[in-house]
C-alpha cells in the first residue's frame, strides 16, 4: 500500500528526469540539429516578410487563399516562428544539458592524475617489449616532460596522458555557440534598425519622426535613439560605360554629433559604413528625386520640392507619384523618371543608362479623390486611381512646364537621393567573439589527439611499452616508435 501513496511523487520526478535524460541525449540533439536544418529550408523558397515584404504582399495578391494558409503556419516569418524557435531553443537546452556536465567532468579529469598503468600492457595498442639497461624510466620521464605529457609515476611504471586539448576545444566550441545565441538575442532585444531616404543637400536628424521606417528591439524604445545630424553634401555614382554596371557609390556627408557645435565631413561607401559607437550608418540604395513646382489655376504654388522616385531597374527607370492633396478636387501625377530616356515602342519609355544624360519626366494627371483619408496605408510611390479621372498626359525635360485647365506643373530639375540604413546592434560583439572562439575550439577538437602511453619495467628488467588512442586517432604507432627510439638511445 505504501508504494501506491509514494507512486505519484516518484512518477513526477521520474518523468521529469526521464524527459531531461531524453532531451540531453546525443541522439535527440542530433535529431534536433537535423530538424533545424530542415526547418530552415521553407524560408528560402517562400518570400520572408523581414527580407522582402514587397514579395509577400505580391504573394497575397497572386494567391490569397494559399497565402492565408502559409500565414497560419508562420510561413512568411519562418525564422521568428514558434516552431522554428521551439527547435533551436530545445536544441540549445539539450546542448547545455550535454555540455555543462561534461565541462565539469573535464575540469576534474584535467586536475586528476592519469589512470594507473594497466596490468597487462600486451593487450593495449602498439605494444613493444625489449631488454633494458635500467635507465629507461628516467629517460621516459624526461621524454614525457619534453613532449608535455601529464605523468603519473608508479612503482616501476609510468602512466602518461596527453591531448586534453581535444575535449577542451570541443567544449569551447559548444559553449561559444551559446555565446553566439546570446549575441543574437541581445541584438534583437536591445537593437534598433531604421531607414531614411535623404535627398542630396538635405539634412537628416535622427529623431523617431524622421525615419521612413524604424523598428526597435523588445526592450528598447525611441528614448535610446542616438541623436545625430547627417547632411548629405554630395553623392557620386560611377557606372561602367559598357555594361552599365555600377562601379562606385560615394556619399559625402557632414556629421554633427549631439551636444557638439562642430561638424566633420565624412564619406560613406557601400562597404564602409559610418560608425558612432554601436550605431552604424550604411549606404543602401540610391535613386533620383525630380524637383517640381505645381501651381493651381490661380498661379498659387500648391506643391514644390524634390520627390523621391523608386528605381525599377539597373538603369534607374523610376516610378513615383506627385500628390497634391490641398487642391480641390485633389490632383495626382502618376509619373516615371528616366535618367537617360529612350523610346520604347509606342508611348512608353525606358532608361538606357543610370546616369542622367538625357533625363525626362513622363506623367499622367489625375483628378478626384487621392484616398489619403481612407485610413488605408498608401504607398508614396503609387496612386490608387480607382476614384479618379485622367485629365492629361505629357512628358517634360528639366526646365519645361505643362499647363492644364486646373493648373500647371514645372519640372525644375532633379537631385539624387540616398537611402541611409541606421543600425544599432549591441549584441554583435558577443556573436563575433563567440564565432572566433567557436573556430578555435573546432580546430582543437578536430585536430587534437588524445592518447595514453605507458611504460613498465618488469622485475626481470624487461621494458614494456604500450599506448591507447582515443577515437582511433592516427599517429600513435609513430609516436611510440619515437618514444622507444629515445629510450634505446645512449644517454
Amino acid at each position: 500500500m505504501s508504494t501506491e501513496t509514494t507512486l505519484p511523487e516518484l512518477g513526477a520526478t521520474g518523468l521529469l528526469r526521464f524527459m531531461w535524460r531524453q532531451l540531453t541525449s546525443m541522439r535527440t540533439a542530433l535529431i534536433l540539429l537535423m530538424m533545424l536544418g530542415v526547418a530552415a529550408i521553407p524560408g528560402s523558397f517562400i518570400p520572408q516578410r523581414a527580407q522582402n515584404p514587397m514579395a509577400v504582399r505580391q504573394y497575397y495578391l497572386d494567391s490569397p487563399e494559399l497565402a492565408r494558409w502559409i500565414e497560419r503556419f508562420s510561413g512568411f516569418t519562418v525564422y521568428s516562428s514558434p516552431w522554428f524557435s521551439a527547435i533551436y531553443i530545445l536544441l540549445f537546452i539539450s546542448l547545455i544539458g550535454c555540455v555543462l556536465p561534461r565541462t565539469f567532468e573535464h575540469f576534474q579529469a584535467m586536475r586528476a592524475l592519469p589512470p594507473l598503468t594497466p596490468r597487462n600492457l600486451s593487450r593495449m595498442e602498439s605494444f613493444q617489449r625489449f631488454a633494458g639497461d635500467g635507465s629507461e624510466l628516467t629517460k621516459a620521464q624526461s621524454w614525457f616532460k619534453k613532449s608535455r605529457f601529464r605523468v603519473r609515476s608508479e612503482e616501476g611504471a609510468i602512466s602518461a596522458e596527453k591531448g586534453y586539448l581535444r575535449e577542451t576545444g570541443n567544449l569551447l566550441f559548444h559553449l561559444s555557440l551559446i555565446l553566439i545565441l546570446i549575441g543574437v538575442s541581445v541584438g534583437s532585444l536591445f537593437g534598433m534598425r531604421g531607414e531614411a531616404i535623404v535627398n542630396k543637400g538635405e539634412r537628416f536628424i535622427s529623431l523617431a519622426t524622421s525615419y521612413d521606417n524604424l523598428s526597435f528591439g523588445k526592450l528598447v524604445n525611441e528614448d535610446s535613439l542616438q541623436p545625430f545630424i547627417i547632411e548629405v553634401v554630395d553623392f557620386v555614382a560611377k557606372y561602367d560605360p559598357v555594361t552599365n554596371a555600377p562601379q562606385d557609390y560615394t556619399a559625402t556627408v557632414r556629421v554633427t554629433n549631439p551636444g557638439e557645435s562642430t561638424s566633420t565631413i565624412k564619406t560613406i561607401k557601400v562597404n564602409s559604413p559610418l560608425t558612432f559607437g554601436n550605431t552604424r550608418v550604411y549606404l543602401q540604395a540610391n535613386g533620383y528625386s525630380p524637383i517640381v513646382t505645381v501651381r493651381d489655376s490661380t498661379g498659387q504654388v500648391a506643391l514644390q520640392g524634390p520627390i523621391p522616385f523608386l528605381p525599377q531597374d539597373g538603369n534607374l527607370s523610376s516610378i513615383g507619384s506627385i500628390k497634391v492633396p490641398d487642391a480641390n478636387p485633389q490632383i495626382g501625377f502618376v509619373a516615371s523618371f528616366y535618367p537617360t530616356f529612350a523610346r520604347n515602342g509606342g508611348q512608353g519609355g525606358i532608361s538606357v543608362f543610370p546616369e542622367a544624360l538625357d533625363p525626362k519626366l513622363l506623367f499622367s494627371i489625375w483628378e478626384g479623390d487621392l484616398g489619403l483619408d481612407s485610413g488605408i496605408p498608401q504607398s508614396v510611390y503609387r496612386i490608387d486611381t480607382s476614384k479618379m479621372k485622367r485629365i492629361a498626359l505629357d512628358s517634360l525635360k528639366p526646365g519645361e512646364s505643362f499647363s492644364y485647365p486646373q493648373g500647371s506643373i514645372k519640372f525644375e530639375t532633379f537631385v539624387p537621393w540616398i537611402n541611409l540604413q541606421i543600425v544599432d546592434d549591441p549584441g554583435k560583439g558577443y556573436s563575433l567573439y563567440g564565432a572566433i572562439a567557436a573556430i578555435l575550439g573546432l580546430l582543437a577538437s578536430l585536430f587534437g589527439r588524445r592518447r595514453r602511453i605507458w611504460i613498465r619495467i618488469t622485475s626481470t628488467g624487461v621494458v614494456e611499452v604500450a599506448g591507447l588512442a582515443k577515437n582511433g586517432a592516427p599517429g600513435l604507432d609513430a609516436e611510440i616508435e619515437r618514444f622507444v627510439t629515445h629510450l634505446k638511445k645512449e644517454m
Partner: protein
Amino acid sequence: MQTTWAYISNYFVYSAMGIFALSFLAHAFETAWAVKAPQKDANESGSVLTKTLDYTRTERAARIATAMMILGFLLLLGGVIARGISAKHVPWGNMYEFSITGALALTGAYLLALRKHDLRWLGLFISISVLLTLGTAITLLYRESAPLVPALNSPWLVIHVIAAIISGGVFLLSNVIAGAYLYLDAMESKGDRKPWAKRLPDLESLDQLSYRLVAFVFPLWTFAVIAGAIWAEAAWGRYWGWDPKETWAFITWVAYAAYLHARVTIGWRGKRAAWLCLFAGSTFLFNYVYVNVWGTGKHTYSGL
C-alpha cells in the same frame, strides 16, 4: 588593354579544355586497357578463366594522362591570372570566374595529392568534371570581363570566397568518394569487384578518407560562413539576415555538423554515413546552382 587580357584569358581557357580532354582520353584508355582479356591460366587445371589487372601495360598512358593534367593546370592558371588582370580584381567576381577558379583549385588539389598518394584512379573523374565545369562556364555562364559592383569591392571578397571555394572543392571530393563507397559496396554485395574496380581502395579506406576530408574542411567552411557574416555586417548592416544563400550555407553547415556527430559520437560508419555525407554535399551544390541561377536575395550579382 583590358579586353586584350580578357581575350588572352579565353584562349588559355580554351586550350586548357583541349588538354584536359586529351588527359581524359588518356585516363580512359588507361582504365580500359589495364584490364587484360580473359585468358587461360597455365597453372590451373582446366578451364578457369581469370581476368587480371596489369598496369605495366598502361603505365605510359597513365604518365601521359598526368602530364596532360599538369599542362592543363598551367594553362588554366594562365587563363585565371589573365582574367584577373583584365578585370583588375580577384578572378571570382561572377559565376564564370568562380567556376574557372574552382576548376583550377580542384585540379591543383588533385595534383598536390598525387605527389603523395597514387590517386590516378581518380584522374578519369577529375578530368571529366573539370571539363564539364569549364564547358558550362564558357557556354552558359560567360560574362564580359568587367569591374566589380560596389558591394563586392572589399578585401573580404578574397577571404570569404577563397574559403568557400576550397571548402566546396573538398566537400565535393569527399562526396565523390562517398559515392564511390556506395557504388562499390553495392557491387561487392553481389560478389567480387569488377576487374576495373579492383584498383580502387578498399571500402574501409574510402569510408575513412571521405570522413577525414570533411573533418579537415569543416572548420574552413565555418570560417567561410563567419567571414561572410562579418562582411555582410559591413556591407548590408546585419551579420545574419536569412538571405537564401545564407540560409543554405547554414543548412550545409548543420548537415555536416550532424554528419560529424553521427560519426564521432554515435559511431556511424559505412553506408549510412556515406548517404548522410552525400546529402550534406548536395545542399552545398544546391546552394551554388539554385541560389545563383534562380534564386533571389543579396548574393545575386552582375547577371550571374
